[in-house]
């Protein structure tokens, strides 16, 4: 089983999703339990990955390889390294709260809802595990279909606009990446990502490929100015959709930069790193300001996500500046470590915050901040959780939010005083919008009678939020195991990223 572990992680949820679909709406009780079992099983099966992972090598592990399209040298090739492993586990983890959160809340076409998320889970794990670019793209695009349906069917009032915008934005980004991948296949004669990473490319070629990748990944992250689909999608998506969007799908952009852009087009990255750094800093500061003025809770968290993802791209691309100014590579790895930790941490925190909003929305059916006030009086346990996640979102030491941001700010300090200063502004902005949100929603006197009739979290909600809270604290207090898993792969990535690929 060890040999096919990754395949099982991909296909088990997909098979379960199809089974739930076949069970249909009338046997939804069975469908619900099947969904939960399948997602739990996926998480449990992903744990051996962590246990048996060799932390002393950057090579892919748990490798599987079967010819897929022999004529085009495309393989069904899977493997995980220190960069993808944490994301695989995160994906397996975050699907469970989505299913539990929807347990009784989603009644319309519930079987399809659960099925869509299970199929998404399998496809997302596929994205992180694929070591063949064609397979990667296959999962990457296929994922759009369930997400399109999730937002379109179970979303809010403007769901159709939001979901079509979501689909077309990401599709536009992806097709250029596809063109770039095919171009490299024609040159390299293989779709293996490793072959692309080893393929010598002139600077002009690298610039084009970099641009194509940037478009694909920047839309997914999303980076300013191609971020506008995200707030729309988040606001209209059902709770589960928001959680998966924020916790996993945004990470694919960051993962793409680390897996494709940096190692495949290192020279173009070196040349254009200021572009990405500038866009990241704009995201951190400008989007942070935008977040402050939001009146819709989900929109606020969506903008906060964009700002936080700015740290991921900043941490990844600040590498070149560090090497340029300090002429050494130690600090470079720190930026990437920060980017990775930030991705995992943001996955947990933003997922948790969207779940918190979902808890409120299920009771009040509004996400307007002004409709709330004094929730802590009627929902003290919930308020404790939300405050904790909010503080983690601001990067409070002791929570996972701190580790990622701190590492990135520290690394960017090595590159330039100004980068770190600008990035550190987020500590102020993040605190402003998050704490102001908490203040308006949770604190103060009970705002209206709806709030007065709120009931605190039930056992199901408590369990979900509790587990996430423990993880946020665990990574915040002791990030070492996570960093240790990532280390060899990050070191390897740094050497790839700062090498040159221009043929002599």
């Amino acid at each position: 089983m060890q040999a096919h572990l990754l395949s099982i992680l991909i296909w088990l949820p997909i098979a379960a999703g199809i089974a739930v679909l076949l069970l249909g709406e009338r046997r939804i009780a069975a469908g619900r339990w099947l969904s939960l079992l399948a997602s739990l099983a996926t998480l449990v099966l992903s744990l051996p990955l962590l246990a048996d992972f060799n932390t002393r090598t950057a090579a892919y592990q748990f490798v599987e390889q079967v010819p897929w399209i022999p004529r085009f040298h495309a393989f069904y090739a899977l493997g995980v390294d220190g960069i993808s492993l944490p994301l695989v586990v995160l994906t397996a983890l975050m699907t469970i709260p989505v299913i539990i959160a929807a347990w009784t809340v989603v009644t319309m076409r519930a079987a399809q809802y659960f099925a869509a998320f299970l199929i998404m889970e399998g496809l997302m794990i596929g994205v992180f595990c694929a070591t063949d670019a064609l397979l990667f793209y296959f999962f990457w695009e296929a994922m759009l279909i369930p997400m399109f349906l999730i937002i379109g069917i179970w979303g809010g009032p403007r769901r159709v606009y939001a979901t079509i915008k979501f689909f077309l934005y990401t599709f536009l980004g992806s097709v250029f990446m596809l063109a770039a991948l095919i171009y490299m296949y024609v040159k390299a004669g293989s779709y293996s990502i490793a072959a692309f990473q080893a393929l010598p490319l002139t600077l002009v070629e690298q610039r084009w490929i970099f641009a194509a990748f940037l478009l694909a990944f920047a839309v997914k992250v999303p980076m300013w100015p191609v971020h506008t689909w995200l707030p729309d999608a988040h606001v209209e998506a059902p709770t589960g959709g928001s959680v998966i969007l924020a916790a996993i799908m945004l990470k694919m952009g960051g993962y793409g930069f680390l897996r494709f852009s940096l190692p495949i087009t290192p020279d173009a990255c070196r040349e254009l790193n200021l572009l990405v750094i500038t866009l990241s800093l704009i995201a951190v500061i400008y989007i942070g300001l935008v977040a402050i003025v939001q009146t819709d809770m989900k929109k606020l968290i969506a903008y906060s996500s964009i700002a936080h993802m700015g740290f991921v791209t900043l941490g990844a691309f600040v590498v070149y500046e560090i090497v340029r100014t300090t002429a050494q590579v130690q600090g470079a790895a720190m930026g990437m470590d920060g980017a990775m930790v930030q991705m995992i941490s943001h996955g947990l925190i933003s997922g948790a915050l969207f779940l918190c909003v979902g808890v409120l929305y299920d009771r009040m059916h509004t996400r307007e901040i002004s409709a709330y006030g004094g929730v802590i009086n009627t929902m003290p346990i919930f308020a404790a959780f939300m405050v904790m996640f909010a503080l983690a979102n601001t990067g409070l030491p002791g929570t996972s939010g701190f580790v990622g941001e701190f590492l990135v700010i520290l690394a960017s300090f090595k590159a330039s005083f100004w980068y770190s200063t600008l990035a550190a502004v987020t500590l102020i902005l993040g605190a402003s919008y998050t704490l102001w949100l908490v203040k308006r929603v949770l604190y103060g006197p009970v705002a209206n009678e709806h709030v007065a009739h709120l009931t605190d979290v039930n056992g199901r909600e408590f369990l979900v939020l509790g587990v996430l809270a423990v993880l946020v604290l665990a990574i915040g207090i002791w990030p070492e195991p996570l960093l240790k898993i990532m280390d060899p792969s990050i070191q390897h990535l740094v050497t790839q990223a700062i090498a040159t690929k221009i043929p002599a």
Partner: protein
Amino acid sequence: MHTLLHLMPGMIPAIPEIFLGFAICLVLLFEVFVGVNRPGATGTLTLLVLVAGAALTVRYADVAHTTVLFHGMYVTDPLAFVLKLAGFLFVAVALLYSRMYLENRNILRGEYYVLALTALLGIFVLVSANSLLTVYIGVELLALSVYAMVAFDRESGVAAEAAMKYFVLGAIASGTLLYGMSIIYGLTGSLELGVIATKLTASGSLGVILGVTFIVVAVAFKLGAVPFHMWLPDVYEGAPTSVTLFVGTAPKIAYFALMLRLLAHGLPGISADWTLMLTPLAVLTLIVGNVVAIVQSNLKRMLAYSTIGHVGFIVLGFVAGTASGYSAALYYTLVYVLVALGAFGVILLASRKGFEADKLDHYKGLYQRDPLLALVMLMLMFSLAGVPPFVGFWAKLRIIQALWETGHLGLVIVSVLTSVVGAFYYLRVVKLMYFDAPTESLPATLRPLGPRFVIGLNAAAALALGILPSPLLDLCSRVIH
């Protein structure tokens, strides 16, 4: 049969056409003596004929090497074998989907099946053409049958108008083709494509370019490439949907073969000239097809413009001008026909007696009314949009690959941008079916077991070939050399 074949050993590879010719006479006679009293019987017989034809083709026409027959008029090769089998399959499925529709409109008559079979014979002749004359015979046999099919519903004024337009414009295109052929014949002194290929090896002669221009125009007309596409939306919209289904599917194979035989096999020496002409055609076709499709409110018309958009991709395979490009175009054609069959099939099954489900609005909330049909349409739409895991993705991938191999950066960009535009209107169909509630009380969809099963298989094939694309990709690469 065997002794008969013994007498004419040279004719064995032409069994599909010979069989079909006899079968057409048989079906015609059957209709006169039996079919008039039993309306469905001719259709059943036709399906049997198609199955038998496919079996005979597999038995006798599966040639390992290119075989030229009838004094160079006729060629059969692995490509022809594959296309003929595909022809049998696609026509059979199309007729299966159409049956209830024809019955509901009181046009279930044997002539319909006879015309479908003569059209198929035209397709076969075209697929196996090795001389300009054979090409022309194939084109006309196919076109005349299809004109009649478009006008088949005598009561319908729109259909008559569509048929008239199609006929007049088609006649002009035929004339153009013939004129171009006559110039090429005049310059080379031969009708045989292989001989022409050896004689026209360098461009430069104005006469050659003139001849090729006429041929390219005629081919572009038949395919529906912009700016020769005007007939296509009108015919698709005006014709009875079962005919739209027919026109929109199997003949595409023939027009692919027309392009391949005439341009790639007949005029390879001057490929620089015709790829130059095809390039702007392809770009215009992609842009006009995909952009105009957005504003359509009629699903048949939208699919017509979508067809135009897909034709742009097929032409791009020829612009690449390499074996890889031709096999990409072949793959694209087969995949497109497979998916279009299902899409038009959904329209047929969503229609009722006295109700034509051809407006986009008729698909509002289809999911609530008929989940299976909606799921099928969803899969087909995503396939047309080129989203994995559906087979349409690989078709686009192959074309882009062929373009990269020949260094066409600009065309790659145009093709990917237009696919994003295309995605929009396919998504809109999904949106109508899944996100909207049905507004008006629409009649229930048709629920005949057989066609519904086949349409389910059709969509499943789009998925299965998308997950495991290797066999079909391999086949398409193998038969093009």
